[in-house]
Every structure is written in structure tokens, then in C-alpha cells.
């Protein structure tokens, strides 16, 4: 069953069109990675799905309802969460407060969900009262993911979760992503450094210059020499 369907979406900033009809699909409970060289339109795709950019053509369907052009706060309520690549935490708030902000739209008790997140990221458990601004890149990324998970979303979208992280930390992040997925959350990742991400993915898409180029299982894409050529042209 498909959770998210992006169908021939065209989008961009102002008069600058970046996506020229991109289609992807995320099944419920799956991990999907979108890779591609810089400028391929990966982040633009994320922002368009989440309603930060309005598509000029195409449809986006989520949980069997159309969400094309819906504003972010409504998309959040439908069960989708988004972790931007940079500036994805509130630096002057503590870990606990960052997580609480993730649950801003909830009116009922969310302490159970919060405990689950602390179990998922034990490093954060000891630092609940610490200001996130003083924490390292890897810990910030975990806070950002934790914040996004507070609403118990059906789909978690991560924009380059391993960017600017040391390799061992990046490995930890991907390990956590698998753990989050095991609890039933579908995950859509955008990555430039594709290997780690494709290893854990059920399915992968390759974008180039705002268009779909390849689509296959993660393993097959890793083995596909043509994908590499796409990065290097020719």
C-alpha cells in the first residue's frame, strides 16, 4: 500500500523551476532514499511535499488524501514530519523543550511518546535539561529527529541527515533511522552521500536536473554503475 505518492510534480522558487515533473512513491513502513547530484532538486522535492513550496503542476497524495498545496501546519496534522538539513533545532531551548515543541499541536498528554524517543536516543536521556545550542552536530541531529517524531508521524522526512557529521556519527544516525523504521514509521531520506543511506533503504530514486533518472531497490542501485556516471556526467 502506498503511503505517499508524488505524481509528476513541477516546482521551484519564483520563476526558477527546479523540479520538472518528478514522481516518487513511499510505501507504508518503508525506507525510501532519494539521491542525486547537488542541484538535482532533492531538497526542493522535500519542501514541495511538505507544503513549503507550492507545486505548479502534479499531485501529491498522502494516506489516500490529496495534500497538494496544503500549508505545512496542515500537513503536519495529517501525520507527516520533516527535519530540514540545517537550522533544525531551537538552540536556546533544552532537549526536553525541543521535544515538547515537536508536540505543540497536541492537546493531550505526550509524555509516553517522549519516553519512547528518549529510549530511541539514549544519549539524549542524560541531557534532557541541556541547551541544544551547546551540543554537538550528531546530538543536534538526534534532537531534530526526536522533535519530528513527537507527533508519532506516519512518515518522517529527513533532509541529508548525515551531512557534516563524522563517519562514525553518521553510522549511528542510520542505525537510529532503522530503529525508528522498525517502530512502523515510513521514512523518506534525501542524501547526496548515497551508500550508507541506500544500504538501509527498501527503495531508492535517483534524480538529476529535476527529473527522475533511476528507480530500483537500494541494493540494485548501489550495484548500478550508471548511477555513478550520472554524478560524473557523460
Amino acid at each position, binding site marked *: 500500500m502506498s503511503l505517499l505518492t508524488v505524481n509528476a510534480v513541477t516546482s521551484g522558487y519564483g520563476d526558477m523551476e527546479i523540479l520538472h515533473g518528478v514522481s516518487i512513491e513511499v510505501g507504508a513502513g518503508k525506507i525510501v532514499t532519494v539521491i542525486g547530484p547537488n542541484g538535482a532538486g532533492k531538497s526542493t522535492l522535500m519542501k514541495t511535499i511538505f507544503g513549503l513550496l507550492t507545486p505548479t503542476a502534479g499531485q501529491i497524495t498522502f494516506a489516500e488524501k490529496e495534500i497538494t498545496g496544503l500549508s*505545512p501546519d496542515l500537513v503536519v496534522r495529517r501525520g507527516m514530519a520533516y527535519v530540514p538539513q540545517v537550522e533544525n533545532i*531551537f538552540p536556546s531551548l533544552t532537549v526536553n523543550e525541543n521535544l515538547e515543541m515537536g508536540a505543540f499541536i497536541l492537546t493531550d498528554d505526550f509524555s509516553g511518546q517522549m519516553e519512547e524517543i528518549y529510549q530511541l536516543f539514549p544519549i539524549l536521556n542524560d541531557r534532557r535539561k541541556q541547551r541544544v545550542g551547546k551540543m554537538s552536530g550528531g546530538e543536534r541531529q538526534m534532537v531534530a529527529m526526536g522533535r519530528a517524531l513527537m507527533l508519532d508521524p506516519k512518515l518522517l522526512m529527513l533532509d541529508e541527515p548525515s551531512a557534516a557529521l563524522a563517519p562514525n556519527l553518521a553510522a549511528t544516525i542510520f542505525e537510529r533511522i532503522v530503529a525508528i523504521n522498525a517502530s512502523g514509521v515510513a521514512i523518506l531520506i534525501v542524501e547526496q552521500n548515497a551508500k550508507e543511506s541506500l544500504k538501509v533503504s527498501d527503495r531508492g530514486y535517483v534524480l538529476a536536473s529535476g527529473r527522475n533518472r533511476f528507480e530500483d531497490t537500494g541494493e540494485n542501485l548501489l550495484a548500478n554503475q550508471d548511477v555513478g556516471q550520472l554524478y560524473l556526467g557523460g
Partner: protein
Amino acid sequence: MDILSRIPQLLVYGVISGSILSLGGIGVSLIYSIIGFSNFAYGDMMALGAYIALGLFSLFVSWSIPNTPLGPLSFGFGFILAAIFAIGLTAVAVVLIDRILFNRLRSHSSVILMMSSIGVALALRNILQFFWGPQPHYYIERIQIATVIPGLGIRIKPDQVFIILVTIVLVVLVHAFLKYTKMGKAMRATADNNALARVTGINTDRVIVWTWVIGGALAATAGILAGIENKFITPELGWQMLLSIFAAVVLGGIGNPYGAIVGGMVIGITEEVSTAFIPTGYKPAVAFIIMILMLIVKPTGLLGKRR
């Protein structure tokens, strides 16, 4: 020797005016960090609060709501009730101004918001002047006798103790609000990163309304307390304090409400102590010079973050 002996007394006066400056400074800082501009109408929002309290108080007197002085204070229940209503009404008025004006200009640069706040400042002040005239109005005309604190030789009036206590209570309340309530945290989050706050599902428009509510309430309180301390109010009451409030905010680090408290106290005390050495009329200039020195030494202020 004579000058030095006056300093302890001046320190006490400094804490009193510093209290009022701190309250104003917190409001200016919150508005700056969350809404993103220096609000030059803040002083006149203070005056608005003071006049609404005056209006309600005379109304309550005409309704024979009792105002027997509470203990050693110069005012009683009727005045306190008027003040509380005035604080609420000022908050409402300030939110209305935002809806009509600032909210619609928010897509422009912060300089345009600053400019429009100057228009609001003059309009508010002259609305007060239109209805009440430029002459001073008295809350209570009774003269209060200062008590001398034995041993120290410092004189202080019960009303002044009240001002300091109200300030402490409000600072604690604002701190608790920002620290422990959901809306307070959302306000800090919005100040940190407005775009992320929206992505997270925080209703930033409601955050802005709340910011004005708190900013307006603090303005009214500061205005009323200034009226109690001065014994009278004029439409220029807030404007006369605005420069000192801005100096306090810049000193503490613009956009940091805790810095505003520190800055308010420093400015309040320095202004009062300076009167031992230079003419009283130069108080605002003293604040201004401290501010300029701070800008030269460390533009981010005492508690400011480096950007």
C-alpha cells in the same frame, strides 16, 4: 563627603526606577526578539496604560468603590482594581494596534515597522493629550511620609517598596511563563528560529498575539508604577523613559529579556547616582552615554549572544 553620604539613598532610588525600566525593557526585548523590530511606541503604550488606570480609577471613585489605603500604602482596593483592569485593557489595545497595523506591515523590512511605530507613538500620545490635556494628573494627591530605615539612614516610602515587590513578582511570573508554559516555550522557540517554528506546527501568529499581550501588560504596569512613583502622570510619561529603556535593552543585549533586567537596574542606578554629580535634567543623557560606551566596547551587550 556630603555627596558620598547621599549615595546609599540614591542607590535605593536607582533600584526603584531600575525596576520600572526593567519591566519596560523586558517588553521591548520580547517584541524585538519575537516580532523583530525596535518598538518606539513602547513608551506611549506605557502612558496609555497609566491613563486607562486613571480613567477607570475616577470611574470607580464615582461608583463609590472603596479606596481606603491598604496598610501603609497611599492607595487601596479601588486603585488596584483599576490598575488590573487597565493592564488588561492596554494589552487588548496593543493587540488591536498590531492587528490593524504592524501585522499588515510585517512582510516589509523591520525599518518600516520601526517607522510605523513612531507614528503610533505620536498618535497615542496625542490621543491621551486630546482627552486629558498636557497637564499632570494625580492618582492620589495625598503626601506619603517616607520611613527611615534605622541604622542606614535610608528613607523609603511604602509605595516604593510596593513598586519593587510588584516588579519582583512580575519578573518571576514572566520567567515562569517563558520557562514552564507551552506558550512561553513557543515564544522562545519562535525567537530562536521563526521558520522552524512554523514547520514544527507552532502557530506563530498566536505567538505574536501573546507577545503583544505580555508586552502591553508589562508596558501598562510600568506606566502605572511610574505614575505611583512620580505621584502624577503626563502624556509624555512613557516617552521620557523610552530612551532609558532602550539604553537598558542595548546594555543587557538587545532581544534578551534577562539582559533587560540587568540593563534596567544598571541604568536606573547610574541615572540616580549621577544626580549627585551632575544636574538632574541630564538623566536621559547619562543613559544615552552608557549605551554609546557599551556599543563601542561590546555591541552585543552584557548578556548578548554573538551573531
